[in-house]
């Protein structure tokens, strides 16, 4: 739920990093925290257990610049990835403007990825939000590991596409980040749409800012 404050001339938006446990959601935020100038970011809050597993959420506010004289302020949140924290995970989705699903590329984590994606769909629909209609991107993290699954396998499991019913949207839309691939296309006589995806190695910072930029841009464009 973006909030526009005409008095302080600010646009506030909420981004949530979702995904399975130990997939790198907190690492994404830590990298952003470490790289962004202290003038443009606030304090990072982590509600974690003694073993540094996220218990409730991590929170980091960042200013991304000024548009039309309005400061664009993004509040980044992560959710606890572990399955049994669903009650608190769901709370963080309240009022979300954009979502990054941080998938763990390791073959062994495929099932955890799928379970978390399903959980995301379920939690969103319980709030009455439609994941296919809000800014939503997927980050395939840990691409440097030897046991990383091929992108096409990850795409097939986590981003197979949803049906596009609206005639106005039924046109081939190329994926600007991957030549030769489409975000909207016709497959077996049916129009389907997919979420944009990126590859990342969050511990090294690879792909972290590209992810943030991609999702923030989508969020701001929904306001235009």
């Amino acid at each position, binding site marked *: *739920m*973006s*909030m*526009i*404050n*005409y*008095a302080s001339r600010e*646009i*506030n938006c*909420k981004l949530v990093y979702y995904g399975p446990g130990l997939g790198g959601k907190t690492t994404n935020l830590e990298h952003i925290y470490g790289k962004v100038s202290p003038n443009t970011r*606030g*304090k990072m*809050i982590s*509600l974690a257990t003694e073993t540094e597993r996220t218990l*409730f*959420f991590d*929170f980091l*506010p960042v200013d*991304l*610049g000024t*548009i*039309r004289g*309005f400061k*664009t302020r993004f*509040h980044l*949140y992560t959710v606890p990835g572990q399955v049994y924290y669903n*009650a*608190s995970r769901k*709370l*963080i989705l*309240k*009022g*979300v*403007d954009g979502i990054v699903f941080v998938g763990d590329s390791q073959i062994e984590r495929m099932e955890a990825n799928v379970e978390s994606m399903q959980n995301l769909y379920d939690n969103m629909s319980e*709030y*009455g*939000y*439609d994941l296919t*209609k*809000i800014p939503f991107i997927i980050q395939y993290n840990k691409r440097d590991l030897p046991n990383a699954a091929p992108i096409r396998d990850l795409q097939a499991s986590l981003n197979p596409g949803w049906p596009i019913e609206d005639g106005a949207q039924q046109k081939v839309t190329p994926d600007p980040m991957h030549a030769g691939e489409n975000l909207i296309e016709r497959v077996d006589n049916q129009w389907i749409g997919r979420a944009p995806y990126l590859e990342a190695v969050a511990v090294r910072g690879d792909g972290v800012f590209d992810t943030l*930029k991609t999702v*923030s*841009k989508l969020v*701001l*464009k*929904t*306001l*235009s």
Partner: protein
Amino acid sequence: MAGAASWSFSENDFKQIQQHLQAFLRDSNARCALLVDRAGQLVATVGEPPQFDATAFASLTAADFSANDQLAKMIGENEFASLVHQGEKESMFLADVAKRVILVVLFDQRTTLGLVKLKGKGAVERLNKVFEEMFNRVGAGPTAPEKGLLEGAEDEIDKLFG
């Protein structure tokens, strides 16, 4: 609903909100009042400027309130319309406003919880009215999206992200 709708308020709304909060602080002798939306964004601060990171404080407040909302449901209550956190010297009183915003009051030994609660009740009623009018004015109630502010600003958005 495709996603969470956005909302906005004008300088006039802001002024009204601030006046109500100032009057409340005067009557209750509390130190500071903050308004935080349910998504964790700080809407307004009135009174002694807080000595802590207000943005982080706002996000924790919203999480605290949401968690308590769920606890209320678990024990068969619809909601806890207000919460109190009482410390040795500093205390907090939190109350729901129009189901969209949380009033957070910081107070110390210069006043009492009873007075804060009593005056808080009136303040919440007045703020409820302001917010409801604000939402009605936009047309379709609290979920009406703010359109047009960034209309045609695609170039600027693209430039922002290089």
